[in-house]
């Protein structure tokens, strides 16, 4: 494989893949926040403080 074709492929797929992977993780964390909300007493304690 030609070095420039290789470099550009790695750059496009690499940067894109890294952003995509982390974007999926962000979405997963947000989903997990809905599944595992902060217990009510912890939120109350936080509000009082």
């Amino acid at each position: 494989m030609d070095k420039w074709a290789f470099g550009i492929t790695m750059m496009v797929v690499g940067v894109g893949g890294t952003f995509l992977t982390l974007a999926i993780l962000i979405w997963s964390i947000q989903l997990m926040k809905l599944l595992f909300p902060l217990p009510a007493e912890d939120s109350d304690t936080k509000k009082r403080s």
Partner: protein
Amino acid sequence: MLADILTGLGGLTEGVQLLFTITGLKHIVMLLIAGVLIYLGVKKDVEPLLLVPIGFGCLLVNIPLSDLMHVGIDSGARQVLEALGPSAPESLKALAKDDTGFLRTIYNMGIANELFPLLIFIGIGAMTDFGPLLENPKILLFGAAGQCGIFLTLLLALALGFPHLQAVSIAIIGACDGPTAIYVASQYAPELLGPISVAAYSYMALVPIIQPPIMKALTSEKERKTRMPKVKRSVSPNLKLAFPIVVTIVTGLIAPKGLPLMGAIMLGNFMRECNAVTRLVKASENEIANVATLFLGIAIGATMGAELFLKPTTLAIFALGFVAICLDTVVGVLFGKLWYLLSGGKINPLIGAAGISAYPMAARVVQTQGQRYDKHNFLLMHAMGANTGGQIGSVAAAAVMLSVLKGLGLI
């Protein structure tokens, strides 16, 4: 008898004589480099946990005739192999190996098979609190922006004529993450492991010097003074427990070639968050990480033999490593500026510099720089979030790279 005594004495002076040959001069240069590494570690506090064993390993391997990285073939087995000729099976050749050097044994024990970086990653996972990242998950994108230097440096390395896999191994210095750099280089460019590892750890230690001028040059005073709201507590213990498992599965499915790296760091973090294996957590962040760091350092130093290290490529690797970390910071801060514009001035662009993986140094740099322009600006928790995002980002970038290489049929 006198002749025997003189011959015996000759054995004692052989090493000294060798030092004063052309080859010996290279060894002297390497002994000086070993001295510099040890000096930096001991007197200047530059990553001493790594640079001291690396420096000492370098010193050991460059003493002439020490044979500490000896690779040989058992004499009996050699006769059998010679009799069989080219038809000798590979399994027999492997069995006949006689790697007797002390440093070679350590190298084979944990670098050749990638074990030591992974053990260190378990310790890093056990020490890392992903809480600030989980409070504001979008900040994880800084961890992706902070890895762009890797890919830009890859293009530069290719332009300089490095073969594909060497270029990838050099570019990964931009991950600003020692174990990841060692993991990739030991697999795909073991001949460059010494300079890549030394460059990775040296530049990580120099982050507080490298980053501030770039941060200042790319941002206005108004942007640097941007205050960010206090981080609200919104993360439940169950979320912290589920996080390492979800990250392992998601990244493992997308980029399976990087699973050992991500799996190791997330195993350490899961043990930390589950509160059920306190002894294992303590062992991971102390004994195991310390022993692995010692052996890793010595073994890396052992790859710094004069013949392998004293080449023009070493200088190129150091230059490319420096460029990689600068580019990471540039792209990170520019990404921060973009976010600043899109959010209507709610994000301090300096946070972008923490998207590299040098944890927690990069976050501290952001806090220090923020307070230089506004003493009451507290960016640390946001920067910690971006910095832990950088840790995940660097491993994800390496994992993606390896998986793309596999997809292209290059590994």
